[in-house]
């Protein structure tokens, strides 16, 4: 029996994996017992969406060693696409002149783009380079101003007459895929600029693009209704009104679980394939990988875009489940740093570790809210009885800040004392 086991697991029994999985299982069980099944299933669905985000980040950080500090932006893009595709068609927009007006502006934008790109290629006709650059910049600024002036009346007409352009009335899963594609596209743009340079620049640029995406989604009311929020988003599965909360959420959980299993299977295959080996070799020793003739920048871009696509898909699934698209709900703490903690605590580069880490961290995160409030209340009461101190108002806001502090501390401590996470990446040594 023992011999069989050691034969099957040549590197020793997977004690660590079993322990972490048991820990997660116990945590889920505790939540089920204490909070009731309807709430717990909701938490599990959210945790599984976060697991998809974490898998996306583990590709970037664990496989490729690229640090994406703007997960939030890609999550928001996924959520936006899910909203745009799944909401019912808005007849007040599509049935009137507004759609044609908007289309006309977009056509003019294409024309302007063509002119500017044409001007940037003028040096082929023998125009001096300095003159070409000046001409291109002037043309770009002018056409930008003209387009802005054309765009403003159309969008304000849409906002006043139709509210917003509405959705496309397609199933939500198409929106998730589109969200992945859009996130990948933005990731391609950012990665293309930054990946050949120092790794810090990618962090700075992703941090910036995330805030920009949020600003756009928040302020372009004709597209997203901005702070007015869009709800309820239709689910790809039968909603709670048909099946009741518990059953509807369970069906949704089945969908996300299938997604995770599929992504996990494919990632595991890719990780052990020559492609995965190549990616790790670039991460661990760039110089020798280059000497082996690998196109480093192209591979890095591949990894980064791939991760962004997954984050976009996960963001779509998360937003659809929440049922409301509100740009203000995307905050760096919940959608960037929480995912980062999941990955570095679970084990960057270890797919199973990342999934388990995501489940564990999300459960702790959700459960720590009442706990933090309880501790703060206790502390204030204690001080009150000892010193007669009144304590600050808005205790729940303060408790949130205490959790922010704990997340930051956790990041630093894990990096210092357990840089490989709970389940370290397994490196196979071939003798």
């Amino acid at each position, binding site marked *: 029996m023992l011999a069989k086991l050691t034969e099957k697991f040549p590197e020793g029994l997977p004690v660590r994996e079993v322990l972490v999985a048991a820990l997660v299982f116990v945590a889920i069980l505790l939540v089920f017992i204490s909070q009731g099944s309807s709430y717990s299933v909701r938490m599990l669905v959210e945790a599984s969406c976060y697991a998809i985000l974490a898998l996306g980040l583990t590709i970037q950080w664990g496989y490729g*060693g690229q*640090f994406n*500090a703007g997960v939030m932006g890609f999550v928001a893009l996924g959520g936006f696409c899910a909203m745009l595709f799944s909401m019912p068609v808005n007849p007040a927009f599509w049935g009137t002149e507004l759609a044609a007006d908007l289309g006309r502006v977009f056509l003019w934008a294409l024309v302007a783009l063509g002119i500017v790109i044409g001007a940037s290629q003028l040096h082929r006709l023998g125009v001096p380079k300095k003159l070409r650059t000046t001409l291109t910049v002037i043309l770009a*600024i002018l056409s*930008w*101003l003209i387009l802005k*002036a054309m765009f*403003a009346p159309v969008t304000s007409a849409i906002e006043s007459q139709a509210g917003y352009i509405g959705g496309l009335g397609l199933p939500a899963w198409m929106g998730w895929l589109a969200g992945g594609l859009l996130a990948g596209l933005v990731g391609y743009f950012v990665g293309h*600029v*930054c990946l050949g*340079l*120092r*790794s*810090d*620049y990618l*962090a*700075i*640029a992703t*941090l*910036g*693009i995330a*805030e*920009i995406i949020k*600003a*756009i989604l*928040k*302020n372009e009311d004709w597209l997203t209704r901005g702070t007015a929020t869009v709800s309820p988003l239709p689910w790809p599965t039968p909603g709670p009104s048909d099946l009741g909360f518990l059953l509807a959420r369970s069906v949704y959980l089945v969908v996300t679980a299938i997604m995770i299993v599929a992504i996990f299977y494919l990632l595991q295959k890719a990780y052990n394939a020559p492609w995965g080996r190549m990616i790790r070799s670039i991460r661990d020793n760039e110089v020798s990988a280059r000497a082996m003739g690998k196109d480093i920048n192209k591979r890095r871009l591949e990894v980064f875009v791939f991760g962004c696509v997954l984050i976009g898909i996960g963001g779509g699934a998360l937003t659809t489940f929440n049922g409301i698209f509100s740009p203000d709900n995307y905050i*760096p*703490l919940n959608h960037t*740093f929480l995912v*980062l903690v999941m990955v*570095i605590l679970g084990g960057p580069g270890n797919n199973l570790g990342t999934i388990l880490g995501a489940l564990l961290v999300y459960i702790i995160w959700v459960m720590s809210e009442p706990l933090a409030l309880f501790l703060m209340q206790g502390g204030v009461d204690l001080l009150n009885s000892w010193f007669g101190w009144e304590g*600050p108002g*808005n205790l729940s*806001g*303060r408790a949130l*800040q*205490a*959790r*922010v*502090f*704990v*997340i*930051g*501390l*956790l*990041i*630093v401590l894990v*990096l*210092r004392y357990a*840089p490989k996470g709970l389940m370290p990446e397994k490196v196979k040594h071939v003798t």
Partner: protein
Amino acid sequence: MNELVFFINNVVISGAVAGSIYAIGAIGVTLVFSIMRFAHFAHADMMTFGALIVFMFTAMFPGTGAALGIPTPLLMLPLAMAITALLAIGIDKTFYKPLREHGVKPIVIVIASLGVTLMLQGLIRLFAGTSSRSMYIGERKEIFRLDVPFDLATRPIVITEPQITLIIFTLLAVIGLHLFLNRTRMGKAMRAMSDNPDLAKVSGINTNKVVMVTWILAGSLAAMAGTFLSMDVSLTPDLSFFLLLPIFAAAIVGGVGHPYGAIAGGFLVGYAETLSVFNWSVLLRPINHWFPEWIEIPRNMALVGSEYKIVVPFFILVAVLIWRPTGIFKGKVI
């Protein structure tokens, strides 16, 4: 002429103010970058921390500055600079130094600095809340209205007291930094270490001391920038992510590891921001009659709306990374 005064108020002065703040912030970032080779994300929150210390002391001893004829926050600034410098050294000793000695990649220290950002943010907002406050407690913010000696201009040029002090202090800081880096032994050691850390070490430079001095400079400059920003507008605890991008853009545009470049970059980013949100149709209106009939000047001709201000530093960052990743002045770290 009124349009020109409007331009001076809204672009020349506010651009100089934004530029000075970004420049002081970017000097700290660029120094840390050149000595320790990582992008220090917690810098913006060190700025907020410094401003908060000033605010706390001002609230404790309101009106003490009146005895000397200066605003109280300005009197408390040196104290806050010292405390923030101590905080910076403490953060480095507890969080960054062990990682550095562990020989991790720089990007891991970047992530650690993000963790430190969160810790600082959590602490600051735990005690100060998230609402914005005025730094002037029981005092009046002096506003100077300078009349323009032209008949056509009826509106004055408006500049406030903190804006003037900010610009003066920026100049002083730049001159002081220049003298420090070029004339003192420690400054030379810093430049040597930013050029080549290994060579600096074998030539007998105490690298630990250099690192400490770098943090003192970075921390006190951060406290200064944060305090002036809060004095100019108000103390806003959750500004950090919106400050990080322009500061990093300024440091990278100027060439990372290049203090003078950081100053130039700061002003470049500051002016680019104010110029792009400025409504240009104001300046075109007086010469409207020169245009042919069919051109109608739109009411709003700003390049971007003020809600998209953050796009400007990002655009500059991307442009620099594409065309000249070393920055305007060739940076040492690429």
